[in-house]
């Protein structure tokens, strides 16, 4: 049978998906064990025991200086920044995207500006943000927004503009005004796309978050990774990276699930 025609069942696919991950873990353990056999105090590839020990302190023992449980405080601070940035970007993408996509005069006036902002590498603006907003939370959230909002706006505007012309005309023959067209025809049809845009922006949003935290912060997942890097503390860095990956994957799954549940019409009517 040709490979393109080979159907993989759900349970089988879960099993097959686990194989490369398990292999990678085994490979890591083998190499780490080998290094530790040669040098018992090796820091580059820590063994699981060392990771548990290092993380135990961060997870359950309050920090001597601040009295906080650092791992949870880091997670909370990072997620707060991430969600604020994502929320502001999503709302502005919806609002600006609808206006740009549906109203030709608005597109003519602001389309070029949005494109211009979108092509600036956001990290290049980070110094400006630090100068303008100081080193606090605002600058970090602003970096996320500047990093992902222009892309999302363009995506939403493009999607609205690509709605079939026939639908826009039909709505007008049914008596719809511009406002009614926007809230009853364009807005609901763009929502599934908006969730998709948030999903695609999650990756870049994490990049900008970690970058901002690495440069100037006193708490956060990115801050912690870059802090312990100075001591070659791979036993903290690796669990943190795994934790970030897990958070990102869960967010992604939630978004996919929401999209399917909330907009059955966009998925062939199936729930």
């Amino acid at each position: 049978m040709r490979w393109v025609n080979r159907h993989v069942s759900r349970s089988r696919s879960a099993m097959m998906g686990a194989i490369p991950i398990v292999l990678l873990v085994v490979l890591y353990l083998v190499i780490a064990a080998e290094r530790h056999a040669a040098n018992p105090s090796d820091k580059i590839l820590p063994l699981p025991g060392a990771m548990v020990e290092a993380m135990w302190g961060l997870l359950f023992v309050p920090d001597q200086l601040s009295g906080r449980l650092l791992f949870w405080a880091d997670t909370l601070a990072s997620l707060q920044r991430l969600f604020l940035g994502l929320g502001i970007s999503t709302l502005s993408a919806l609002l600006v995207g609808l206006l740009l996509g549906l109203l030709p005069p608005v597109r003519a006036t602001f389309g070029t500006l949005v494109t211009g902002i979108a092509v600036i590498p956001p990290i290049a603006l980070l110094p400006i943000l630090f100068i303008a907003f100081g080193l606090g939370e605002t600058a970090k959230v602003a970096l996320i927004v500047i990093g992902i909002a222009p892309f999302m706006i363009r995506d939403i505007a493009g999607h609205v503009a690509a709605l079939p012309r026939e639908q826009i005309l039909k709505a007008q023959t049914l008596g719809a005004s511009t406002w009614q067209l926007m809230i009853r025809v364009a807005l609901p049809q763009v929502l599934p796309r908006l969730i998709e845009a948030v999903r695609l922006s999650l990756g870049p949003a994490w990049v900008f978050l970690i970058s901002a935290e690495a440069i100037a912060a006193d708490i956060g997942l990115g801050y912690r990774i870059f802090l312990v890097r100075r001591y070659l503390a791979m036993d903290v860095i690796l669990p943190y990276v795994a934790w970030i990956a897990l958070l990102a994957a869960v967010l992604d799954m939630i978004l996919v699930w929401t999209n399917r549940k909330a907009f059955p019409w966009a998925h062939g009517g199936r729930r």
Partner: protein
Amino acid sequence: MTALLSFKDVWVEYGDKIVLERINLTIEEGAFVSVIGPSGAGKSSLLRLALGQEAPTRGTILLDDIPLAPECGPDRGVVFQHYSVFPHLTALGNVMFGLECAQSPLLAKLTGAARRQAREEAAAMLEEVGLKEAMHSYPAQMSGGMQQRLAIAQALIKRPRILLLDEPFGALDPGIRNDMHQLITRLWTDYKLTVIMVTHDIGEAFKLGTRVLTLDKWRHDPHAPHRYGAKVVYDIPLERNKQESLSQDDATQPLSIVPDDAGITIDRFDNN
């Protein structure tokens, strides 16, 4: 029968390409006008003019003796070949949309008694087009024929002065198309509609219409073919009572052919 829609010396040009030239037409109330012609002869341009999607380059279009604004409005309903229903609304929601827009300018949503009434009206309209069972389905769950039924119901709930059909049955298979012919003829009679239908199917044009317009280029410059536009080359009234003759074979019907000023004759058995 009074004049509902009239075209007075209408020209459509895109740049230096002339699409339609010297269109003079009067469409009477209650007429079912089929528009046929080869591809690129401006059939769809004519429909876009009537819809208000486009303004003529020259000339005037009058609806009820009032010049037509170059914008779509609720006095003209339309059914396209594709994409004329809203995928995010159920069949019922699609039909209610027109009522909601009229009664609730700010939110385009109705509540309470107004909503119940709109629901009933929409449900009755859906029953009329044979979609009673599919009332709560989304368009993606419907076949092509059902979607076109829905598009017709959606347009008719606004009681438009004119119903414009742009190859509405072009994508349907022959059996379904026949059902749709019966449906549109029944609705046309029951609702006393005025219909303009653009079609590629000559049989369909003669079967349904009370008048068949043929658009074509009537002169040709080999060096600048784009400089001559299409005009109405045949305007054929069909004096038949549609309610009775629908099931009969069209080829056996005597056609009363009124050639245009060009004096060309039409081969009615092997229509163009």
